[in-house]
């Protein structure tokens, strides 16, 4: 008699995904599987299609071919379970909104866009802000926060959503080192509790030190797997055209 072991589905699975912007092919037949419950980084040189890859997976790029599964399902069936933290410059600057209002957005997919939030929602919002240390900034306008504080607020939104998969696009740009380390700690503990986190990132040093999994991209997948196996001199040379830094300790 055999027992079937039900493996949890991949956090993100792309099969032959291609995408183009204004006639230029940015992703060319990308196939990759990112395992669940890991802190994963998508790395590669500028223009490698890192952002495009996660945006394509989230249905944010108009012309995409290929097949995408998030948490083993098509996007439309897992919208509530997937949280997206976009690049800071794709969020409206100088918008009149307070920190707590941003975090509350995380509850809208659950509650509906026209209904009031419940007390339960308010508690989740408060707990999420507490978790990333921004509870005291609740009533601050978002445009008066520092880069690090803003990023904490956006992560709190993902936490309030209670998502099983969090996808972040360049989350540590314009963020101080202390905040980066604190946020990585929160993300790591999420993964230990079975959540999956995928971050587009460019600092290869942190990827080696703090991430469980890495995908090296240069229009197509150069390598994927454990960071130490992915970020080898050979792979980096293929992706960047030259080894950018001696990463080996």
């Amino acid at each position, binding site marked *: 008699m055999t027992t079937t072991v039900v493996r949890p589905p991949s956090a993100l699975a792309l099969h032959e995904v291609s995408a183009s912007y*204004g006639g230029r092919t940015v992703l060319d037949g990308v196939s990759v599987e990112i395992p669940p419950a890991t802190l994963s980084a998508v790395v590669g040189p500028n223009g490698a299609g890192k952002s495009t890859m996660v*945006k394509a997976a*989230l*249905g*944010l790029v108009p012309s995409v071919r290929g097949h995408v599964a998030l948490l083993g399902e098509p*996007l*439309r069936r897992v*919208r*509530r379970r*997937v*949280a*997206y*933290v*976009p690049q800071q410059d*794709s*969020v*409206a600057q*100088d*918008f*009149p*909104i*307070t920190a707590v*209002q*941003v975090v509350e*957005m995380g509850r*809208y*997919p659950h509650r509906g*866009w*026209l209904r009031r939030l419940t007390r339960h929602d308010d508690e989740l919002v408060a707990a999420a802000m507490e978790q990333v240390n921004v509870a005291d900034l609740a009533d*601050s*306008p978002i445009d008066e926060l520092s880069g690090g504080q803003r990023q904490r607020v956006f992560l709190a*939104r993902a936490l309030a959503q209670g998502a099983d998969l969090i996808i972040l696009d360049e989350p540590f740009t314009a963020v101080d080192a202390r905040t980066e380390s604190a946020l990585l700690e929160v993300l790591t503990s999420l993964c230990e509790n079975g959540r999956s986190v995928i971050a587009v990132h460019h600092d290869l040093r942190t990827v080696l030190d703090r991430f469980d999994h890495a995908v090296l991209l240069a229009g197509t997948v150069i390598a994927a797997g454990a960071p130490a196996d992915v970020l080898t001199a050979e792979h980096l040379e293929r992706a960047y055209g030259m080894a950018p830094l001696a990463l080996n300790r």
Partner: protein
Amino acid sequence: MIGWLLDALPLSYPDAVVVVGTAVVGFVAGALGPLAVLRQRSMFGDAMSHGTLAGVAVAFLVTGAKVPEVLLLGATISAALAAFAMIALERTGRLRPDAAIGVVLSVSLTLGIVLLTHIAGSGNSEQAGLNSYLLGQAAGLTERDIVLALALGAAALAVLLVGFRLVRSATFDPGFTSVAGVPTWAVDAASTGLLALAVVLGVRTVGAILMVALLVAPVVTARQLTKRLSTLVPLSGAVGAACGAVGGVLSGRAELPAGPVIVLLATAVAVLSVTFAPRRGIVARMRRRRTRVAR
């Protein structure tokens, strides 16, 4: 009901009509203005406003009469066509948005002026006053105009109120909102529609050329005074209403076109707010910086 309000005001009947009429138009424009300013669509609104002129002229040429509702319908159709043309130029012609706006704005204004000039020369005695659509005129407002503006304005504001979170989220963070399952293109289209309505309602009073200022200036004023969109919308509406009402009366007294007077007033208020607003104003920020340096 409007009649009662007009009688209750301590003004002569014609002045009361102007005050109430321009206040309604100003409120609607101010309250819907954030849909232009915060979406960085101010010039898009300007081009739609210039586009109304040709529609007014064509509506008059077709019907041969100056029925406000018919002219309004013409203005709406041509504003929508202008919006459609801009989007089409951006999408298919791969034109940058500013270039698309520039083309549509100048072409539609030219068309409007050519048609109005043609009508003026046609000897049709009905056409007198059609020119006021260019620079606006508050004196010609009637009770019927007010009722129409109130009804359409209230409907537009109700739509904004119901969809408030959708609009706020889609404008602030379109990526998140789309991933959450909202068709952001639909929110965008609805916002543009509401904006078109505000433009069309105001065009007769403020004029096609200057209408955009009544969408933008009250928002700039109010933005300095609040950190929440839910306060910005009514506050901006109130500023728009005040500028509209005062400017409308002043222009009548001074025998000047209403558009420029209202716009100068709204701009002056915006400059005051940008300079002296308690928290975000230039003076307040300079003072904060000085205290920080002193420490």
